[in-house]
């Protein structure tokens, strides 16, 4: 479904991503792990069009999307979230989700001006769509709150809800569990699994929480100093001595044991 070939980007002299080839298959939860500064977010930026690669190509659903602008790539069904909490702060949760439906709303200019068929149908649909997504992500009771006033964990969830509103075929999540407490992390895991199983979306995940990664991923890839170290089933990868060496993090040895 997604295929990166020999992808590279440099920032000055720094090889942030170097010659990485990586594929994501339809219907799976694929995870990308690696120590801080390994180039994971940069890889997401390359794939989603927020950065242009200096070399290599990205193919998504059989088309070459290398260097396309992010909104085009999102329109093709590849939507990403951000590592930092990226939200529309000064609107309500419901309004924010409505903005997220941009790609699903098709009314043209004159239809809008004349309150035509498409617009009216759209306005009816939006209510239902919102309700679905807000319930799915457990945000329903927060819908009338200003986004900046809801708890941090809910803001993180809202970022995922926004991406879901765009109805992606492939969803890229950049460290969604950052800063969540154990209960919220568990909720997040359940939701990611439901995204794959109920919504039939493919998920590509960056995550430091090894517990989460090992238990929900179908496959793992490891990035280190911008290069791909290895990829495979979570159990295999986490036993790989090269990975353990690169990744001497506490979380990882715990997961590997």
């Amino acid at each position, binding site marked *: 479904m997604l295929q990166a070939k020999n992808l590279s980007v440099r920032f000055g002299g720094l090889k942030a991503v170097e010659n990485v080839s990586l594929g994501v298959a339809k219907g799976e939860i694929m995870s990308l792990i690696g120590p801080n500064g390994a180039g994971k977010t940069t890889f997401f930026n390359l794939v989603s069009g927020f950065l242009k690669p200096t070399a290599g190509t990205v193919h998504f659903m059989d088309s070459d999307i290398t260097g396309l602008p992010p909104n085009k790539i999102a329109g093709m069904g590849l939507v990403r979230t951000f590592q930092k909490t990226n939200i529309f702060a000064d609107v309500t949760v419901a309004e924010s989700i409505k903005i997220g439906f941009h790609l699903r709303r098709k009314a043209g200019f004159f239809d*809008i001006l004349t309150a035509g068929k498409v617009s009216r149908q759209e306005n009816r649909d939006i209510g239902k769509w919102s309700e679905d997504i807000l319930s799915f992500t457990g945000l329903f009771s927060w819908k009338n709150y200003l986004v900046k006033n809801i708890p941090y964990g809910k803001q993180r969830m809202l970022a995922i809800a926004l991406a879901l509103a765009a109805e992606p075929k492939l969803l890229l999540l950049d460290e969604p569990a950052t800063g969540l407490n154990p209960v919220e992390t568990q909720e997040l895991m359940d939701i990611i699994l439901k995204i794959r199983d109920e919504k039939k979306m493919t998920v590509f995940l960056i995550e430091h929480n090894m517990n989460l990664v090992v238990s929900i991923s179908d496959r793992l890839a490891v990035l280190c100093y911008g290069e791909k170290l290895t990829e495979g089933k979570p159990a295999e990868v986490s036993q790989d001595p090269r990975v353990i060496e690169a990744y001497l993090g506490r979380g990882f040895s715990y997961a590997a044991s």
Partner: protein
Amino acid sequence: MNRFLRGLFAVLIAAALYGLPRLFTMDYYLHIFVMSEIYAVLALSLGLIVGFAGQVSMGHAAFYGMGAYVSAILGTRWGWPFWITFWIGGIFSGVVSYGIGRLVLRLRGHVLAITTAFFGVLVMVVMNNWISLTNGPMGITGIPRPTPIEAGSVRLVFESRIHYYYLGLFFVAGVLYVLYRLTNSRLGDAMVAVRENEELAKSLGVNAMKSKVFAFTAGGFIAGLAGSFYAHYILFISPVTFTMNESINMLVMVIFGGMSTLFGPILGAVSLTILPEFLRMAGEMRLVIYGFALILFIVWLPMGVWGTLKNRLFSGKA
């Protein structure tokens, strides 16, 4: 019930607007009312750009002026009727604002503000110096009034201020309707998305540049229409009407009334057209008081009068 109340409210407002010039019949008042209407349209159009799309423009008077000049030139030189030149003035401003928008909207914040201000100055320079076309600082006189509308036995003429007042009501209502539809659509939501967080907007499929250019073009088009209306009301135009002062004046109306609502700019336009007239009594101190009042307002009510009220009154938004 809610619907009934809304209907009642609309009828009351319509009745009040209808009755207003019969209560205040002096020409002086009527002139203030008509100018309030023109500024309401200008503030609404700028509000789309600044309030909804979040792009600061300090050159809006240029689009106002271009609409006025195009319409006035066509009317005086070729005798084209207002009902046609009105639209041509708007389209001309719209096309120019599209071109300018494409050029400048990749800039942000202060740089964008300064660039649009510079564009405003540039248009002034053209108005002042392309004398064969614009008659320079002398301005254009003898602009024709709108020709009467005849439909069967009904004959509507546009000869005195009260006629313009009623025509202006239709103008404001039309603009309000269009902006209401736009801001409650995919296009309006895309503008808000870009204003709130451009990076996130892009990640959700919004073409940020297109959205900004659209707001800028629509805003320019409507300002051009307002310019044409103004020209055929005052019947004389010259460059001094379309200065940077005027651009800032419109910006203040938007900020004062409340950005990113439709009622806010109208409130701002009407109160800031009427208020300075009251302050005339203060003589020399007028501008000082005015400026000071504005600063206090912006400090205390950063969301504008209507934005603040709206949040207080209808705060489902905890």
